């Protein structure tokens, strides 16, 4: 069980994010929920690439004689972090526009005002 403690942390992260997404009413809290899930999934990707007692896969002045960590998850996580920035920026600017039109960030009031 100790072996996959990081994966349990990932499960907590994503569970928390899903909880905030489902049960919270404020738009900004929903955006935070999405960011939580993103960080959880990125953590999951990165923990898949670790090799015990290995160093980063860069050959410039690297200490010799040590194994190297798996490089592909780092490339995948880099891509998904930038995608996370893009989605977060877009969600927050849409929340700003909703606040401009309806004057409130509460999803129930937004639905009632929309009529």
């Amino acid at each position, binding site marked *: 069980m100790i072996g996959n403690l990081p994966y349990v942390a990932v499960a907590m992260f994503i569970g928390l994010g899903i909880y905030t997404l489902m049960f919270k009413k404020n738009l900004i809290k929903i955006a935070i929920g999405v960011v939580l899930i993103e960080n959880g999934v990125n953590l999951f990707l990165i923990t898949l690439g670790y090799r015990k007692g290995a160093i980063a896969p860069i050959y410039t*002045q690297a200490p010799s004689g040590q194994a190297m960590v798996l490089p592909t998850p780092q490339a995948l996580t880099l891509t998904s972090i930038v995608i996370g920035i893009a989605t977060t920026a877009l969600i927050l600017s849409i929340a700003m526009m909703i606040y*401009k039109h309806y*004057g409130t960030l509460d999803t129930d009031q937004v639905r009632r005002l929309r009529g």
Partner: protein
Amino acid sequence: MKEMSRIVKTVTNFVYGFIIIFGFYIIVHGHLTPGGGFQGGAVVGSAFALLLVSYGSLNSKKFLKKDIFSLFENSGLTLFIVLGFLGLGITFFYNFLANSGGWFGDAAVIGINPGDMNTGGVIPLMNIAVGLEVLSAFGVILLTMASGAEFTKKKENS
């Protein structure tokens, strides 16, 4: 956003140059040291955020122009996809400069080496293209959302 106190502005004037230089260092040395286009672009983007916060969104419009950033962004991305197209003779993203002796073409010494700038083929050019795109993307996002925040707040007190 209102501008910050005098002290913050003087420290920002002093510091933001070094942050931008450090960001460009990470972009250009992407294929040797940890980092690359995205991480370097983010560092330079943080310098723009520092300027925006310390000078406030109204008078930071004087030196952070949005349409120059969007021009850089489009040109950076066009450079990136043209680099992809140039390899079309063989396949789309073919690294035609690697080990070809010309620009960025030296073959890297296999195994642990001190790192020679002239290696890596197309990768340094792509790093620069993506770094340009990311830093201007951050610039545009920061300025647009800052002026957007002004606009939405105005509705609140009007």
